[in-house]
C-alpha cells in the first residue's frame, strides 16, 4: 500500500511534466501551417471544393438557377464580362447573374455555368476514382505485404476458379448451374480439409497430394499482377475500355480507378513489409487478434501516410485523365459540361474566342497544381526525415 502523500505527489508530478496531448492529426496540422506551398495548395483545394459544391447545387435540377444547357444562339461567342442583350432574349433565357462572367460559347451557352457544372464532375471523378484505386491498393498491398511469404496451393486456385464460374453463372441467371457449383465446391473444400489439408502431411493420400502443391507466393501473384498492369500505357488502356463501354460518368470513374491502383499497392506493400516485423504486431498476435484485424486495424493506420500522399497526387492525375478523355470525346456524354469538353469545343474558336479554351485550361492547371503542391507538402510533413529543421 502506498502512503497517501507519496501518491498525491506522484499525481502532481505526472500532470505537470507531461507534454501537451497532441493527436497525430493536430500535429500534422501544426506542421502544415509552416509549409506555405502546401497551405496554398490546401486553400485552393478547399476553395475549389466549395465552388464545385455550390456549382452542383446551382446547375442541377429541373430549373437550375444557372442553366449550363441554355442555348441562346443570338448571344454566341460573347466575351467575358459581357452583358446579355436583353432586347433579343426571352425573359426565361436571361442569365440569373445579369452578366456572362466567362463569356459564352458558340451556342451562346454561359461558360461560367458550364465551368461550375464541370467542376463537380472533375471533383467526383477525382475522388471516386482515387477512392476505388486506394481501396484496391490497400487491400492487395496489405495482403501482399502481410501474407507475402505464404504459398498459394493448387486447391486454392481451383476453388477460386469454381467460385468465379459460379458467380458468373449466377450473374447470367443460370441458377441451377450456379447452385450446383457452389454446393459442389463447398463440399469439395470441406472434404479436402477433412482428409487432405490437415497439418500432418503424412495423412494426405498420395492421389490428393498434388492439390496442396504450392504454386507461387501471394506476393509474387499480386506484385506480378501490378507489373502487368503497369506495362500497359494507362491512358490508352483507359481509352480502349471507355471506347467499348457506353459513355457515362460512372464508367469513367470506375475505369480510371481500376487502372490506377498499382502505385498505392506498391506503397502499402512496402510499408507492410517493415511494419509486420514490428513488436506491436507480435504483441497483437499474442493477444489473439485475428489476422484481418491486425492487417486493417493495427498495421494499416501506421501505413496511411504514403497512401494519403499518393491519393492526393492521384486525384490530380485522375482529374487530368478525365479532362483528357473528355477532350478526346470519350468522356462524359455531351450535353453535360466538363472542363475537358469545354476545352475541346473551344479549340475551334481559339483565335476568335480564346476565353473558351483559356477558362477551362487555366482552371485545370490551377487545380491540378494545387493538388500536387498539397500532396508534395503532405509527403514532406508526414515523413519525419524530410521535415525542415528550424
Amino acid at each position, binding site marked *: 500500500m502506498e502512503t497517501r502523500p507519496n*501518491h498525491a505527489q*506522484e*499525481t502532481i508530478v*505526472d*500532470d505537470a511534466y*507531461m*507534454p501537451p*496531448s497532441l*493527436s*497525430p492529426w493536430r500535429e500534422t496540422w501544426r506542421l502544415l501551417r509552416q509549409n506555405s506551398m502546401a497551405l496554398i495548395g490546401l486553400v485552393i483545394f478547399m476553395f475549389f471544393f466549395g465552388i464545385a459544391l455550390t456549382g452542383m447545387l446551382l446547375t442541377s435540377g429541373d430549373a437550375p438557377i444557372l442553366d449550363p444547357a441554355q442555348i441562346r444562339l443570338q448571344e454566341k461567342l460573347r466575351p467575358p464580362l459581357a452583358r446579355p442583350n436583353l432586347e433579343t432574349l426571352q425573359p426565361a433565357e436571361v442569365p440569373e447573374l445579369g452578366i456572362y462572367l466567362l463569356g459564352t460559347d458558340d451556342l451562346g451557352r454561359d461558360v461560367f455555368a458550364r465551368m461550375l457544372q464541370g467542376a463537380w464532375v472533375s471533383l467526383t471523378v477525382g475522388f471516386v476514382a482515387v477512392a476505388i484505386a486506394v481501396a484496391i491498393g490497400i487491400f492487395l498491398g496489405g495482403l501482399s505485404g502481410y501474407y507475402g511469404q505464404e504459398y498459394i496451393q493448387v486447391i486454392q486456385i481451383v476453388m477460386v476458379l469454381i467460385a468465379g464460374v459460379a458467380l458468373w453463372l449466377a450473374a447470367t441467371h443460370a441458377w441451377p448451374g450456379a447452385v450446383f457449383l457452389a454446393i459442389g465446391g463447398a463440399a469439395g473444400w470441406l472434404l479436402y480439409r477433412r482428409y487432405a489439408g490437415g*497439418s500432418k502431411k503424412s495423412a494426405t493420400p498420395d492421389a490428393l497430394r498434388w492439390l496442396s502443391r504450392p504454386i507461387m507466393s501471394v506476393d509474387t501473384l499480386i506484385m506480378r499482377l501490378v507489373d502487368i498492369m503497369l506495362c500497359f500505357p494507362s491512358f490508352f488502356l483507359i481509352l480502349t475500355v471507355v471506347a467499348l463501354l457506353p459513355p457515362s460518368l460512372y464508367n469513367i470513374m470506375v475505369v480510371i480507378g481500376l487502372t490506377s491502383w498499382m502505385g498505392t499497392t506498391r506503397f502499402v506493400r512496402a510499408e507492410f513489409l517493415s511494419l509486420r516485423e*514490428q*513488436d*506491436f504486431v*507480435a*504483441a*497483437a*498476435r*499474442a*493477444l*489473439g*487478434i*485475428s489476422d484481418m*484485424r491486425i492487417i486493417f*486495424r*493495427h498495421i494499416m*493506420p*501506421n501505413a496511411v501516410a504514403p497512401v494519403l500522399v499518393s491519393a492526393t497526387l492521384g486525384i490530380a492525375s485522375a482529374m487530368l485523365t478525365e479532362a483528357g478523355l473528355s477532350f478526346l470525346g470519350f468522356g462524359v456524354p455531351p450535353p453535360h459540361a466538363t472542363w475537358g469538353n469545354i476545352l475541346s469545343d473551344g479549340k475551334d474558336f481559339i483565335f476568335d474566342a480564346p476565353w473558351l479554351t483559356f477558362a477551362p485550361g487555366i482552371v485545370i492547371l490551377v487545380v491540378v497544381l494545387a493538388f500536387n503542391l498539397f500532396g508534395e507538402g503532405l509527403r514532406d510533413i508526414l515523413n519525419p526525415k524530410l521535415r525542415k529543421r528550424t
Partner: protein
Amino acid sequence: MSQDDTPVLSVEDLRVHFHGDGPVSLAVDGIDITIHRRETVCIVGESGCGKTITALTIMGLLPQPPGKIAGGRIFFKGQSLLDLPEEALRKLRGRHIAMIFQEPMSSLNPVFTIGNQINEAILAHETLSEDEALQRTLQLLQDVGIPDPQKRRHAYPHQLSGGQRQRAMIAMALACGPDLIIADEPTTALDVTVQAQILKLLQGLQQKRQMAIQYITHDLGVVAAIADRVYVMYAGLIVEQGTTSHIFSSPRHPYTRALLDSLPGKEKRGQRLYSIPGNVPHPAYKPTGCPFHPRCQHRQPKCARFFPTLCDYGEGHRARCPILYESEGTVGGRCEWKNL
C-alpha cells in the same frame, strides 16, 4: 478437484529446430517445463539459449518456416496445444495465455491511445458493451498503477515513460483474465527502480488474480526476487531446475554456479568479477556430449563423449551434471550418462 492438480502448463520434450541455409539449428533441444497454478516460474539463461523461442512456441507464434517443431508436446490445462487448429489457438491466446514483451516502446501500437489498445485486447475475446469495456479498461489501468486512468487512457504510447508503457502492456495482457502470463524479459529495458516497481506489481497482481507466471530473464537478481521455481537453460537444454532456494543455496550444475559467481556482491568488493569464458555455442554447431563442457571448470574427458541426463537431488531439484553428482551427490537419487 482434478482441475487443481493438472498443471497450467506442461511442456514435454519440446524440440524446436530452425532450417536455414546451413546445418539445422537445434534452438530448443528437448526441454520439459511444468508450471502449476499460482506459481511463478523463472527461466534463466544467457542470450541465445532458447528462452524466447520456447515462449513463442508455447504461444503458437513460432515463425514457421524457418522454425519447425520437431517433437514434443505442450499441454495447457491438459489440452494439447500443438494439435489445436490455428483458429482455436488464436482464441486461446490473449484470453487464457497472455504474453508481455521485452520492449514496451515498440510493443505498443504508436498510432493508438493506450485506452484504445486495452479496449481492443478486451474486445478481441469478449462481447461487451462499449461502456462495460471502458469500465474494465479504467479498472485495469488502475490495477497496474497508472495514476488518473480517466485522463491517461487518452495518452499515446510516446507520451508515457518506459515504466508506464510496460504497465500498459501488462494491463493489455491482463485484459481477459488469463491463467498464464508469459513475461519475456519485461524489465530488461527499464531502469532498476522501475524494474522493482514492475516486479512488485506483477507479484501483487498474481496474488489477486491467481495466475501462473512464466518469467523469462537473464537477471538472477530478478529471479531471487520473484521466482517460486527456476529452470536454468543452456544451449536449448534445461541444465538445472529446482526451487529458488535450491538454485541459490545449493546449485548443482557448473553453469548455474558460474552464473551465480558472476553476480556482483558485497564480499566481492574490489575483486575482478568472474565471467564465464567463451560464448554460448551456436545452436547449429553445439559441442558433442555436454554442451557446456568447453566452458566448464569441472570438465573431464568423458564430458565430450557422453550426454548427461538430469540427476535427481530430491524435492524436484535436478541438474544435468553427473560429474558433480558423483562428487557431491546425495544418496537415493540416480544419475547416468547417455551414450551418443
